[in-house]
């Protein structure tokens, strides 16, 4: 009798447990899976971006409520985030249980074996595998957090592409259109070719001057005191001219044309001269602008068109407390040289970076299991839509169909649709294990070209030589 009672009790418990699994929020499953880890604290570091802040403010407390695992989340500046994460992982101190991995640094981390293989970890701990979490449901962006075997090392949390933004109020103004056509002999439209882009830029700069408006033709992310300028050249301008992978040939370990590289080649020189040639048509702050200041300039209405990171598209188009041009923002694919789109469609190239970041678990972490639960929690479909609305980021395929996002999409001129349909044309950073090192080497040369101390050809040939020297020093040279 007693035995029977026990069995009934067990059955009832099992039923209850199953019941809770099928309830909408899976409360019970999380509580049960997390039971051994309840009360522990996991720590993470991230750059302070809107998506990160949403994680810190909304998702982390929610997770704690579900599981009893505390999440301490540190959001800081980009530079700080890097050095802290790297210091921690290199010194193997175990301060952080999860770190923000910017997409371009992932290959450096993989090469150093800093990160836990999430696919493997989920397979090793079936009891911790949440049913709704599916690695395959992420957008193509997740491909850039995988190793050669296709195993995932980071749960994507934000993803953007750098798009071509233009001011609809200017481009659709009949007077302006007439004036443009009178000057250039063809109708004013958002640019399709680089020549047209330059014409637009020149026209609007002249127009702004003539009307005594604070208006210039284009943004240029040309800070001479920050890597942002090198990034704009290497990840946006270069690729859309057909300069891929920074012009570095990984097989020969060289950036110089003589050794199979392309950083000092004709395409690169053409791209850089074109880009620097836009500076006279950019607002005066361009040579001090990093990514955030470009967005601010554009939001202040100081540029008619420009390359702006997609995470800014949403607030520029909708947030009236921060943007003077809400409702007038047009979103397009960036301008490309002939053949580049075809290259990208065939997988031989890309038209710009697919940028963003993911959360990964360092090997040095002491709470890997609890963190694994946390990463699945933020990777599950049900939290994605609101997070996307708050942070203008999409990493999960299910998010596109959400009504919340569909509504936002109309306000930002189809940015999300563009991300869904054309996202695969963009690619992650080249698989360099020496990303930041080489970028720092190229930096001063790009800065000097912007200042006009060097011509594009001189700057790039010196940069390529310096890159080769650094690659040899790092042990990647041919």
């Amino acid at each position, binding site marked *: 009798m007693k035995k029977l009672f026990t069995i009934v009790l067990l059955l009832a418990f099992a039923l209850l447990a199953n019941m809770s699994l099928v309830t909408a929020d899976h409360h019970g499953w999380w509580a049960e899976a997390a039971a051994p880890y309840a009360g522990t604290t996991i720590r993470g570091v991230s*750059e302070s971006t809107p998506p990160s802040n949403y994680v810190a403010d909304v998702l982390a407390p929610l997770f704690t409520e579900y599981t009893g695992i505390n999440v301490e989340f540190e959001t800081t500046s980009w530079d700080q985030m890097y050095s802290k994460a790297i*210091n921690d992982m290199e010194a193997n101190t175990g301060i952080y249980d999860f770190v923000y991995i910017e997409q371009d640094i992932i290959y450096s981390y993989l090469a150093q074996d800093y990160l836990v293989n999430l696919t493997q970890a989920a397979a090793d701990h079936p009891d911790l595998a949440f049913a709704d979490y599916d690695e395959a449901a992420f957008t193509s962006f997740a491909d850039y957090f995988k190793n050669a075997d296709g195993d995932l090392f980071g749960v994507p949390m934000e993803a953007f592409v750098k798009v071509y933004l233009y001011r609809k109020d200017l481009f659709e103004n009949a007077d302006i259109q007439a004036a443009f056509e009178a000057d250039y002999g063809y109708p004013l439209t958002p640019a399709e070719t680089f020549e047209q882009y330059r014409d637009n830029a020149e026209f609007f700069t002249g127009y702004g001057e003539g009307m005594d408006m*604070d208006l210039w033709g284009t943004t240029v992310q040309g800070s001479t005191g920050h890597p942002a300028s090198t990034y704009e050249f290497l990840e946006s301008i270069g690729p859309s001219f057909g300069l891929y992978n920074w012009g570095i040939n990984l097989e020969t370990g060289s950036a110089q044309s003589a050794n199979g590289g392309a950083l000092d080649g004709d395409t690169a020189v053409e791209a850089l001269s074109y880009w620097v040639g836009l500076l006279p048509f950019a607002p005066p702050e361009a040579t001090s602008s990093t990514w955030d200041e470009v967005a601010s300039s554009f939001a202040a209405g100081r540029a008619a068109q420009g390359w702006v990171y997609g995470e800014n598209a949403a607030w520029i188009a909708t947030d009236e407390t921060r943007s003077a041009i809400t409702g007038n923002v047009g979103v397009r694919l960036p301008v490309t040289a002939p053949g580049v789109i075809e290259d990208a469609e065939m997988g031989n190239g890309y038209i710009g970076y697919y940028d963003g970041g993911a959360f990964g678990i360092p090997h040095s972490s002491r709470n890997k299991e609890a963190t694994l639960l946390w990463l699945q929690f933020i990777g599950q479909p049900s939290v994605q839509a609101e997070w996307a609305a708050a942070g203008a980021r999409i990493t999960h395929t299910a998010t596109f169909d959400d009504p919340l996002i569909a509504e936002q999409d109309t306000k930002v001129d189809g940015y999300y649709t563009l991300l869904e349909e054309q996202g695969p044309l963009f690619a992650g950073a080249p698989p360099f294990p020496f990303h930041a090192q080489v970028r720092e080497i190229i930096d001063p040369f790009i800065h000097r070209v912007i200042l006009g101390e060097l011509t594009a050809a001189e700057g790039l040939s010196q940069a390529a030589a310096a890159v080769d020297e650094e690659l040899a020093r790092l042990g990647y040279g041919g």
Partner: protein
Amino acid sequence: MTTSTQQRIGRFFTTYGIWIFMTVLTLLPIWWMFVVSMRTRVELFARPNLALSRLWLENYSNVLTDSTFQRYMTNSLVVSTGNALLVMVLALLATYALSRYKLAGRDNIFFWLITNRMAPPAAFLLPLFIMFTRTFRIEEITIFDVTLVQGWTLYDTQIGLILLYCVFNLPFAIWLLKGVIDGIPIELDDAAMIDGAGLLGVLRYVILPLSAPGLAVTAILSWIFAWNEYLFAANLTSVNARTITTALAEFVTVTGTNWGELAAMSMITLIPSAIIVILAQRYIVMGLTFGAVKE
């Protein structure tokens, strides 16, 4: 009108001319910081305008109601005050020793102490990071099955910063106090000792009162240096012990620097140090003589 009156009027105008000019120059950036803190983001990026258009306090309320900010503020207060007190005590003892005792090579020790302030901070962050996270680490202390400490490190603690800031504040303090204590006649010490005072008695009844302005200025300047320090605080703390200056850097984000709140927070961080300085104006000048009195 006599020449001397003319001179006096001339001097009056020069004095106030310089006075006003310097005040404007000094206040312009601070005024701009204040104006920025009173603006929305959209207003900031309109045409530059130095006038204050309205009182708009949302930046302040956003910052002040943020619990993280309150924690940072507490940390900053604890760290700078702790550091200033520690520096004051240690520097007094050390300077007294350097001034009164015949220690082998004491001038060399003095110079070595000073060199500690010269080190470029960037490269020293790495060894300090390793030291903070690994050398000073207590895995576990258990007494009677009660775990008192587990996985404690110096990293991300207030005491860690307090001790670390001594590296650049102690040299400065000792230098400052050296002149002050050298200037106190040794005969006073001797007299006190003859009256039966011990070492502590001498320190308490002779040195302390006579070097009070110097000590005050030492404490104030150490406090300000510690309050303003950024690089070490940013790299050697994570969540619990972060100070207010590191929070300033957090406003610089990919989607736009939040200048309004940054300026608001800068204004707020200015207040405590400004109050202290206003209260202690007199002592600062009296204490900063670097031994000029003696000569």
